[in-house]
């Protein structure tokens, strides 16, 4: 089955899923309104976006140097840096560290790189229990599903579905779980025990600061901090492109991150981790590991897709995407959904020419309009479409497109053909104003009528009128 058809199969299921549609409807206006309010109430917001983009550009332009400096500083602080070329490497590195720490259970903060590597599956296979601590991640772990959004992983779940998951997993008896607050308290109590008992904590990082070898973690729940600071070992799974040169640079990213994601000026918690705890510190890990994943990212540097590495994972593009809002994240069948995923996921899968995702966009441009670092997402999707055209065998639809282009280069010929076509279609409509079924245009007419032409093309009619006049 073609990639587009597979996408459509999932999309049709999503459109028919009333629970999913309910959940998506809840999310839709919330994210959009909150970001709009945050942008409107900060006079410097556009300037902040420019500053953030400049940081990302400068970081990538000096990437090797930033990374070497980051590594040196982590080592100097008593931590370790590991380099993973593939998701498989990352899994192996993490499991080795867990084994060395004698870990039976690990707490986990949200890490998209961890998702990229399907870390939980690997941990379980190695006999290590992963405990997700971000509420959204916890919910989808219970549901045995991947995240559907990079910031709100359980966005596709309704309150009722979450209640069911909790009732199945926790011994609840008759306790009520009708209110959102009760659901949150329930998870809090269960996960609190886990924070106190985990041997290893695994988190992602929103940024890495080169000048001091510091990992920055941004959360609203505080789960990331408890994951990072209570166990004996802290493992950070991230990708090397998260690096920024300085603390001041990190501030510039922080300013646009939460505003774009949730409309907050800053998240409740923004934490800076630099190495294991010092002797006189009561909390903090004894071991501090940073695992840097490549997974095809280095191949994007210096190419037309380099700007994709500017992404700060705020999720604004998917929050504002009408396609994402219609079908949800799982339809993309990729770790990264939505507009940024439509570019990044094919590139990380390594065979972008066979992917439906760059085509699954109406190019409405809303993603680019809200992206805090101004990544030209539709432009990048278009470039992926160009690759597809260059690298895959031509199918009927492409011959049609090419034929159209050929004709278009000869306006006089084009004019006579459209004149003829316009008449023919008008005739076929037979005064009904529209056509319900059109040969060769099933893609159109399955969902909508085709308004009938008014009879004769504009160019023909214009010529005729001018001729008369």
């Amino acid at each position, binding site marked *: 089955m073609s990639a587009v058809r597979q996408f459509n199969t999932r999309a049709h299921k999503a459109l028919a899923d009333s629970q999913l549609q309910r959940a998506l409807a809840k999310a839709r206006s919330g994210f959009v309104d909150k970001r709009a309010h945050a942008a409107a109430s900060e006079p410097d917001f556009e300037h902040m976006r420019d500053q953030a983009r400049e940081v990302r550009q400068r970081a990538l332009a000096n990437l090797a140097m930033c990374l*070497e*400096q980051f590594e040196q500083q982590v080592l100097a602080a008593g931590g370790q840096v590991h380099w993973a070329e593939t998701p498989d490497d990352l899994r192996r590195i993490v499991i080795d560290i867990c084994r060395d720490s004698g870990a039976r259970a690990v707490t986990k903060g949200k890490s998209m790189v961890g998702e990229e590597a399907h870390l939980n599956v690997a941990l379980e296979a190695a006999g290590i229990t992963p405990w997700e601590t971000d509420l*959204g991640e916890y919910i989808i772990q219970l549901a045995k599903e991947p995240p559907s959004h990079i910031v709100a*992983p359980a966005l596709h779940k309704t*309150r009722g579905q979450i209640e069911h998951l909790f009732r199945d997993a926790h011994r609840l008896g008759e306790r009520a779980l009708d209110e959102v607050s009760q659901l949150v308290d329930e998870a809090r109590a269960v996960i609190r025990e886990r924070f106190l008992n985990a041997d290893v904590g695994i988190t992602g990082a929103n940024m890495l600061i*080169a000048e001091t070898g510091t990992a920055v973690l941004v959360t609203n729940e505080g789960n990331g901090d408890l994951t990072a600071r209570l166990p004996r070992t802290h493992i950070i799974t991230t990708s090397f492109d998260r690096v920024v040169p300085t603390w001041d640079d990190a501030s510039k990213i922080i300013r646009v991150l939460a505003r774009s994601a949730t409309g907050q000026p800053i998240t409740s918690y923004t934490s*800076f981790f630099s190495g294991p705890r010092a002797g006189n510190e009561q909390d903090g890990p004894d071991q501090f590991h940073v695992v840097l994943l490549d997974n095809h990212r280095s191949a994007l540097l210096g190419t037309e897709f380099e700007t994709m590495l500017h992404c700060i994972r705020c999720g604004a593009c998917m929050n504002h995407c009408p396609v994402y809002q219609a079908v949800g994240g799982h339809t993309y069948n990729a770790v990264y959904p939505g507009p940024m995923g439509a570019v990044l996921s094919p590139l990380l899968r390594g065979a972008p020419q066979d992917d439906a995702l760059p085509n699954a966009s109406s190019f409405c441009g809303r993603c680019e309009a809200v992206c805090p670092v101004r990544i030209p997402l539709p432009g990048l999707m278009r470039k992926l479409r160009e690759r597809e055209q260059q690298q895959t065998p031509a199918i009927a639809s492409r011959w049609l497109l090419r034929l159209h282009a050929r004709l278009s280069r000869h306006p006089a010929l084009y004019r006579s053909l459209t004149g003829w076509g316009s008449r023919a279609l008008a005739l076929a409509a037979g005064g009904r104003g529209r056509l319900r079924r059109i040969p060769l245009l099933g893609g159109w007419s399955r969902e909508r009528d085709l308004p009938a032409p008014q009879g004769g093309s504009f160019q023909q009619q214009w010529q005729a009128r001018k001729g008369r006049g």
Partner: protein
Amino acid sequence: MQSARERILGRIRKASGPGQAASAGTADSQALIAAQPAAQASLRPIDDVPAEFCQQALAAGVELHYCDELAALPAACAKVLDAQARLTVSTAQALAHMHWANSVQPYVRGSIEVGLVQARLGIAETGTACFDSRDVPSGLLFLSDILLVVLDGRHLVDRQESAWQRLGPVGSALHLVTGPSRTADVEQTIQVGAHGPRRLVLFLVGGGLAQVVARHTQPAPSLITLASSP
């Protein structure tokens, strides 16, 4: 055989960019990666730092109080605290050695009713309190149901960049805390008290900020009751 590190860095260096070839750690490379184009003008100045701090902190859900000097703090705390509430403190902080109306215990890991901590700095642009892991154990900030934060009114800065300057080197963790813990993971409904504090009560101490705080906290905040008490 090359290591993964060398292969990854090799690929990165091969891609163009002025800094890819230079080696890290030199003064040159430091300057290069921190150098910003002149067009990157700074953000608009924050004229009234305390007022901005109060406004932003309140917007983030912080409960704000003021007292003139540290000696007045126990009385101020007693006024807003339930008499049975037990305070947990960091022994590394001077607060641990003051005389409190409520019972006080040193921090050990576990669930905590009321954590009492002193922040190093406040950042006005977001109403944020900064904690250095050398003087406040991370767990105390995140395991407390209610977090009482003491912040010197003279330790307020406008923006993060100024905070980094003022702070200098910090411990293995620096925590920026802005309001209580929260989540929106259930149907995008904001719920406070996800994993960390359900309430964040901040005492600004000194700096002559009585009027600023009063102006921003009308009507007067109510008595704090423990979430767990009936």
